[in-house]
């Protein structure tokens, strides 16, 4: 399978990378702050 065959549209792979990194940053921020919200 070629990479182009997996991704549905041009730039989909870059969008996926961005989404993953942003979600990770948000999650890490929540991990630093959740204890104070208990």
């Amino acid at each position, binding site marked *: *399978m*070629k*990479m182009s*065959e*997996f*991704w*549905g*549209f041009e730039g*989909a*792979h870059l*969008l*996926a*990378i961005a*989404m*993953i*990194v942003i*979600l*990770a940053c948000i*999650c*890490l921020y*929540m*991990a*630093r*702050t*959740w*204890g*104070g*919200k*208990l």
Partner: protein
Amino acid sequence: MGRKSTIAMEKARALHRRRSVKWGYIWALWCAVFWGAWYLPGTAVWSAAPYRFMTFETKAEFLLAAAVITAFNAIGVLLFQLLWLASLDKLDEYWRTLWRFRTISKWFFLAAIFGGPCALFGSYLAIGFIGPVFAAVAALLYPIIGATLARFWYNEKITLRAAMGILVIVGGGVTIFVPGLFSETASTSDLIWIGYLGGAMAAFGWGVEGAVAGRALDVTDPDVGITIRFTAEVFYWVFLLLPAAALFYDAPVIEQVQATFNFWAILWLLLAGLTFGFCYVTWYKSFPLIGVGRGQAIGALYGVFAVIFLAIFAFQFPEWNFILGLALTVGGGFLMITESSEVVEVVRAPSAKQMQTSVMRHASVTRKMHMKGFILRLLDEAGNEGLWDHEIMKLVFEEYGRDGAYWKGEIRATLTDLFSGALVHEVEDDLDDGRYFGEGKILMKFRLSPFGAARMLETGLA
């Protein structure tokens, strides 16, 4: 105490309870999001060199490819989990917990066998032989196994509602699996049974992993516990499994590893490590708050996110049975989420044998103890008198040189964790006037429970 104070106390107590359960579900949901997202890099890596050039005409060739990918995935996970620990200022806790192998870490090393070479490897087999949608949905049966084991091993409470939720999730899993056994799928290879076996391995492995890890999670920090579990998995792949494949099966392991070192393959494997690593830390974080069964069941919503992400980014749309299975899975998850927090609060019910008071050796508290163990020892030494949460906080701050709002929150979370695991009893409470954790918050006085005493003996903390 005046009526207003009583009302305020009850409100604060109920609020704390709701927040603890809420955060348990939030962590489990984060697990589902990252787990679902993992199927993107987890599939994309098969389209990178050298894997996209491989024809997979033999079983051995495919198994080696899946093994090398799984090993790299595990290394990526460990790297990002160490980054997670560094960000949360817990690297020293990692070392303090890791060396307690005989009584604590061994359980994470055992959990790694089921989670790695069984579940993760099985998932990559399923992705490669059948497809990511099948792989994502096939593993949905894992909460059944996890909840059943947790029920028998440590009497984790499963309410009727939670059991119904798990059964509905099972129904979703069956809906996904059965039609696929009789219909054609993406591959017409006669090796396709390996893909189905991989799906079953994933369900079994992840179910058992959660229950096994639960045997040590009540006395360790979950962030640390999962990092130790992946330390073990990396050890298994790099020093045992891949060398064994090279030595005993003459597999071209080194060539495969070398060929994997190219930009896109490494990028996808790092992203697979990031998503899987964060999926796991949040999964383990949910267990002490809402229990293994519920944590796994909500985590099973990964199927929803996997299907959504694959549809958005790869235009891969599921068959009708996948959609129905997903609907059942989501329904089962909601059955659990909507259960009252008062029911969920304490997730373990120690057996009568475990409730017998144990004779404790009053060892002196040492600096090398990990934080949760130190807190248990403090409570042990305090005896029936118990200790207030703010007193524990002060002693922990002194012992470990900690300070600040973040560590106040971590200690409060740890005490909530210990309470949910039934290792401590709450003996008294009060309202915070703003001096400790925040005005209007509940302050709690804890005492070590007989079950907590037993767990300390079992895990060498006494």
